[in-house]
């Protein structure tokens, strides 16, 4: 039984099958993401009511919070698919992991910069050593390390395996880092900063937030598949089906 399931998975995850299937999925993801992001932006920018404490500046959270969620989600995806690749030797998992890294780094960057832009009117400074921003910054370092390691190792298969190990080590450490930064922050700053993060959010603000979050997820899905397709073409370049596609 187990063998049959594994066989199915291997077949499903075969590069050729993946290439065909992902080609069909991407347009759906892309269009849905575009619709959701546009709707979420309009809702977030113009329709959601003004926050009585922060005025209109809070509208940045519709970018900031989903981007921060995505940054952590994508790192998780990288670690899990890295583990899958190491344990079951599924090549596609490696491709997904390494295709995810730049997208995750971009979201982390976005979360950091929007957090800082939001911080300027709120805290009066571009940068505050707030626990979330600091954790996000460390996450960015983890992403940069991952990408640097990947580009430093010449052999693509060795690079993928080394990066998988790094991602797993990183993902085990993230909760520890997060906890220590939070603890450090409460010691030094008190709870002055976090008031923005945990207000019981009103439904009219929640809707655009969820729209944006879902849009970001679908956007990630579309882009990661696009990048993975490109990688598959390169790694499988000696196979006949690639030659047939390229002609």
């Amino acid at each position: 039984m187990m063998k049959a399931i594994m066989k199915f998975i291997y077949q499903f995850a075969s590069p050729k099958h993946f290439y065909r299937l992902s080609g069909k999925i991407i347009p759906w993801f892309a269009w849905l993401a575009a619709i959701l992001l546009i709707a979420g932006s309009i809702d977030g920018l113009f329709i959601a009511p003004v926050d009585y404490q922060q005025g209109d500046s809070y509208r940045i959270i519709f970018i900031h919070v989903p981007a921060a969620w995505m940054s952590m989600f994508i790192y998780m995806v990288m670690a899990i698919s890295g583990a899958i690749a190491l344990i079951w030797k599924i090549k596609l998992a490696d491709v997904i992991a390494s295709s995810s890294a730049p997208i995750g780094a971009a979201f982390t960057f976005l979360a950091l910069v929007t957090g800082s832009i939001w911080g300027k009117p709120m805290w009066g400074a571009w940068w505050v050593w707030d626990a979330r921003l600091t954790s996000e910054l460390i996450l960015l370092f983890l992403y940069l390390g991952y990408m640097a390691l990947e580009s430093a190792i010449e052999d693509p298969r060795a690079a993928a395996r080394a990066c998988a190990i790094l991602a797993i080590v990183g993902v085990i450490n993230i909760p520890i880092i997060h906890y220590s930064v939070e603890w450090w922050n409460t010691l030094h700053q008190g709870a002055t900063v976090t008031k923005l993060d945990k207000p019981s959010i009103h439904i009219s603000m929640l809707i655009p937030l969820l729209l944006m979050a879902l849009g970001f997820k679908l956007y990630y899905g579309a882009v990661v598949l696009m990048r993975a397709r490109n990688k598959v073409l390169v790694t499988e370049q000696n196979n006949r089906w690639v030659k047939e596609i390229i002609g």
Partner: protein
Amino acid sequence: MMEMFQMGKYGAYVWSSYGLALIVMGYVAFKPLLDKKAIFKELSMKYRRESQSNNKQEQA
């Protein structure tokens, strides 16, 4: 109408955030399309080279 875009006194912050998101995400989404073109070009050149050298071998 203009008030709506000014967002109180926070217009610059909000719009720059959204603008930046658009630029970054747009670039990330657009890059694979460019890559794909480059890969197709490179691989098709490689295959042409290979088939050429194969033909030569057959002729010889």
